[in-house]
């Protein structure tokens, strides 16, 4: 329970810090880089390392690479939905999650033979 409490605090603080940093920087085209910061990973990898050891974290890191490619595709999809289809940002970011799940899970199955 304590572990998950720590995760909640660390995740919330890390993401809020990156978001605040993005707010303070100009131009916004540069500040947007911080929207792709691996905040969840930063918050949890240290906790996972101490609890479950290096091999577990190494496997998670390998999957994170796939997740990062899915994030790139997700970001591109959001841009297209906003620019070409003029969706609201909430609808675009939510709809594009389908792309993230499809690519992340699809590539994982193909590469890692999972499950």
């Amino acid at each position, binding site marked *: 329970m304590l*572990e*998950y409490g720590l995760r*909640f*605090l660390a*995740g*919330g*603080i890390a*993401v*809020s810090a*990156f978001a*605040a940093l993005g*707010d*303070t*920087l*100009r*131009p*916004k*085209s*540069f*500040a*947007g*880089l911080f*929207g*792709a*910061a*691996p*905040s*969840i*990973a930063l918050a*949890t990898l240290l*906790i996972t390392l101490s609890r479950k050891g290096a091999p*577990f974290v190494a*496997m*998670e890191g*390998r*999957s*994170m690479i*796939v*997740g*990062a490619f899915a994030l790139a595709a*997700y*970001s*591109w999809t*959001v*841009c*297209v939905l*906003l*620019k*070409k289809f003029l969706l*609201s*940002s*909430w609808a675009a*970011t939510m709809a594009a*999650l389908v792309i*993230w799940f499809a690519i*992340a*899970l699809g590539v*994982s199955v193909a590469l*890692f033979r*999972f499950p």
Partner: protein
Amino acid sequence: MIVQFKLSAIRQTRWHEYLVRFVLNGAMTIVAGLIAARFGPVIGGLFLAFPAIFPASDLDRKACPGTQGESGPAGSAPRQGSRGARCRRSGAWKFRIGGFRPRDLADDRAVFCRGPRPRGGVVARRRGARMAGAATAVEG
């Protein structure tokens, strides 16, 4: 491009926006941990790269720099949602994919940041006018 650090921008963000970000992303971090515990590190690792900050950032109300919405002129509430987030989003990737360039976003940023979104008819008319102008230029 000159990068500037504007600390006063933090004060323009309302406290409940930070709260929403904190709670949403703290919860997502817990979910990522639960998924790793239940399904193992391969699937769990994927969710370490989950775009949690992205949707949460869309909740803010800021507009772009250089427009009326940024400082919130008296009597005008910027439209809920996302014009600031749209502008910020344009920096999240830097590659040209499928003929869609970041520069396109930069060109359209002023349109995104200005006032309410135009209706479909207005957009169609603008596109028509643009195409007519291009045709004229080619013919000329």
